[in-house]
């Protein structure tokens, strides 16, 4: 229902409240918040900068959100992804899914964050003691996202 790509930080409590306040049909709200870690690939990082393609990013995030809403019975969804320079401990991404049923909320939240962590249109520049370096795509993350492409499996439980 809502996708935001922004430089600014977000308030997770306020975002969830905005989705759920006054509603009595929502049974469960699943949330995933990603934070910047101080270690990446075994190396200490001082900061990282996320670059994105304004316009295309929102379009792609809106597309995956629409797919989640088609696959699970969701009452509300929210994706917020930050860009710009972020320090370890900073919030970077938020996914919120709400449904009458907890399984739909949890599975769709996992589906969205798997996609975001692996296929969201961002490029990461990491700052370490050795300088700055653009991060390459990771193999293991691709596997996590790819399992949702399979026709059978836990991703389809809600539809069975």
């Amino acid at each position: 229902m809502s996708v935001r790509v922004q430089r600014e930080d977000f308030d997770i409590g306020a975002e969830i409240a905005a989705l759920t306040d006054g509603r009595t049909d929502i049974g469960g709200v699943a949330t995933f918040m990603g934070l910047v870690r101080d270690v990446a690939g075994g190396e200490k990082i001082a900061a990282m900068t996320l670059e994105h393609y304004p316009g295309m990013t929102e379009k792609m995030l809106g597309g995956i959100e629409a797919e989640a809403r088609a696959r699970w019975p969701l009452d509300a969804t929210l994706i917020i992804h930050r860009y710009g320079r972020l320090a370890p401990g900073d919030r970077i991404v938020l996914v919120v899914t709400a449904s009458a049923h907890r399984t739909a909320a949890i599975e769709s939240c996992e589906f969205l964050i798997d996609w975001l962590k692996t296929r969201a249109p961002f490029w990461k520049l990491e700052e370490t003691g050795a300088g700055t370096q653009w991060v390459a795509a990771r193999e293991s993350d691709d596997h996590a996202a790819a399992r949702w492409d399979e026709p059978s499996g836990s991703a389809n439980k809600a539809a069975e």
Partner: protein
Amino acid sequence: MKILYFAWLRQRVGAGEETVDLPEDVRNVAGLIDWLKTRGPKYEEAFRDTSAIRVAVNQEFANLDAAIATGDEIALFPPMTGG
């Protein structure tokens, strides 16, 4: 034609965005890249390995053989690394 560059491709080209007049004989992305490479050593260096380059035409992923025309927004960038 508007061309956008991101990440290390942007750094190597030295610009995030430029508007170019497309030569008549350039009909697809591969042709565009070949033509860009003739524009100087920075471009030649940036586009040396096209296997490391991804393309979007009008904000949709596209292949190197995708047709392009004046008025399109072409973006060239390394593989995205996720959020």
